[in-house]
Every structure is written in structure tokens, then in C-alpha cells.
């Protein structure tokens, strides 16, 4: 079972327009290095889990992996060969809203080459272009 909320206010949600750029959650906050999304998407809970497993399997028991996105958006889908109408379909999967710039994963406690290799493995499980980043200059 992949990630999903424990409780929600409403069962289903409208699709909504995705804003074009991430204005928050777009920097390395907890770890030393991170995987940043360069495109926007609805990232499925299963894809997040696949990325986490890929990175953590490579890291073995080293370092700490942070997941910076949570799939809290219910996505509904009508069954195949169903006529239109008769209301909104059942929830098919849960997704995280990802905008360009969103930080997906972060790693702490490992050297940069190891972190990079782990993030590359996680990036292969993502449906979008991603890049490996470090911490920003802080004032």
C-alpha cells in the first residue's frame, strides 16, 4: 500500500490548474542534497514509493532519506468502456502536486557522490525530468 492521507475532508477533488512554478518547497531544507523536479506533474503515490525504494536500496543503511512530497490529491478515473455521465468516478489513485522546482527527495549523512548516485536511481522512477541539487547560499 502506497502513501495516502489518513483522513480527508472530501472524498473527491476537482482537477484544478497547476501553477507554473514552485514558490515553496523548492529548496533543500532538511538534508544536504536533494532531487528537484524540473517539470510539473501529478506524482503518483506508487511512483514516490518506487523512487524511495530505489534510493534507499542503493543507500542500504547509510544516510537518511527525506520524502518532501505527499500524495494528498485524489485522482478519479472512470472504468473502461463506461458511458459518460452518472457522476464523478471513483478515486483511482492518490497523487502529489509537483510543480517545476519542487524538491522531491532529500538525503543527509552521506558524501556527495553517494547521494548523487542514490538520487539518480530515484530519478529514473520519476515521470519527469529531475536534477540533483545541493543547499542554497544562505545569508
Amino acid at each position, binding site marked *: *500500500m*502506497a*502513501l*495516502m*492521507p*489518513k*483522513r*480527508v*475532508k*472530501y*472524498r473527491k477533488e476537482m482537477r484544478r490548474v497547476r501553477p507554473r*512554478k*514552485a*514558490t515553496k518547497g*523548492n*529548496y533543500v531544507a*532538511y538534508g544536504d542534497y536533494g532531487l*528537484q523536479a*524540473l517539470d510539473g506533474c501529478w506524482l503518483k503515490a506508487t511512483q514516490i*514509493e518506487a523512487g*524511495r525504494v530505489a534510493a*534507499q536500496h542503493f543507500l542500504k*543503511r*547509510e*544516510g*537518511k532519506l527525506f*520524502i518532501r512530497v505527499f500524495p494528498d490529491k485524489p485522482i478519479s478515473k472512470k*472504468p*473502461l*468502456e*463506461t*458511458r*459518460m*455521465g*452518472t457522476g464523478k*468516478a*471513483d*478515486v483511482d489513485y492518490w497523487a502529489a502536486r509537483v510543480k*517545476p*522546482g519542487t524538491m522531491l527527495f532529500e538525503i*543527509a*549523512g*552521506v558524501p556527495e557522490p553517494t547521494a548523487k548516485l542514490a538520487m539518480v536511481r530515484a530519478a529514473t522512477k520519476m515521470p519527469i525530468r529531475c536534477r540533483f*541539487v545541493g*543547499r*542554497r*547560499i*544562505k*545569508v
Partner: protein
Amino acid sequence: MHEKSPLLTAKHRERLGSRAAERVRKQGGLPAVLYGHGQTPTPIVLDLKEALAHIQKGEKVFRLDFPGSKDKDEGQMVLLKDLQFDYLGTRIVHADFARVDLNERVRTRVPIHLIGEAVGLKQAGAILMHPTNEIEVECPVHEIPDYIEVEITSLDVGHGIAAGDVKLPFADMKLITDPHAMVAQIVVQVEEKVGEATAAAGGPAEPEVLTAKKPAEGDAAKPAAGAKPAAGAKPAAGGDKKK
């Protein structure tokens, strides 16, 4: 510090707003603002390459030079207060500077450098966590350090160094950050299996809906109003409005 402070070439920014600022950036400038000392905030432009070279070195205190104009801020000491980045965090798009005097006490953030190899890291699965990479301090401008070194050689598993434990380089330097904020800590990583943990705990397949209508006692036998037919089932005859 006064002699060492790098000189930044600046000029006044006449046109304001996001479009004008973007034009400045395309011409190799860095839009910035200068404020403080009870004076009107002044929009200025810096040379991006020159400013970046100093900022990336960790410099915070600068002297402003307005060539060709007799400005009241000529030779003004300024403290870098804030940087704004673009959405990807790759490009600095704006900088904030505060007018300061050398003996004025200011609040600023100083990065922390961890020195040594901690004893606790020899244990399998132990990792060094440093949630706070910098601490906020109050000190005179001429005493702002480039960084503060923290010795972690004797740090063992389960122990940590809080901001209050950090030895400040000057006696009159005052710590502003919460003294309990953790600067360095050795923790043993426990492997978390997010998905499997949920499944093993027998968690529900669907989340609890807070606004869901609770079925009345008489309606218990009837199917729920929102219940869907099974996947692939044909809709009831005449059920569709459109033909």
C-alpha cells in the same frame, strides 16, 4: 573589516517593477535595494558577476561605490540582509542591503563548520544530522565572523550539540537562535518502509472522510447513495440522459 570590505559598484535604479528588473538582469545587472538608518529605501543595480563573486565567498559586509555621481550613499557600509532566488534556486534575482556603521550591533546569520570525525559515526547505521547549519547572532559589524567552528570529535550516538553549546568567538556576541536548536547530532538510522508499514498495520484502503454522511438506522439495509456499480457493469436501461 572596514579596509577588507569589498567594494561593490552600484548605480541608482530609475525604473522599478518586475519587467524593468528583468531587463536589468538581462543586461548583466543585479537589482537590489538599500535601506536602513531611517532613510528612504533606495533601489540600486549592482554588477551581477562582481556581486556574485563576493557573495559566493561568504562576504556579508560591503562598501558601495557610486561612480560618476555624488550620492549620499557613496562609500556607505552595507550588510547583506537577504537574497532572492528564482524558482529553481539557480539564479539570484534580487538582494537586500542594510546601511550599517562599523560599530553598530546587527543581527546576522553565521554558518557553522563542523570539525573532526565524530566517535559515534563508527557505529553501523549512525549518521550525523545537522538540522541547523547556521546560527543567528547579534554583534558589532566589524566582529561578524565568516564562520564558527564546532568541534564534534567527542560526539557519540544519542548525543547532540545545541546552539547554546556553541562557543562564540567574541565575548560580546549574543546568540539569538533558540539555544535548544540542534546543531549536530548522531542518530542511528532505523530503516523505514513507508508502504509496507502501512500495509502491515492493517491500515484502511481508503482515508476517513470527515464530511461523509453517516447512514441513518432505517437506511442501514439500503445501499449507500454514493455507491457505484461494479467496474465494467452496464448502466441501467434509460439511466443515461444523453443518447
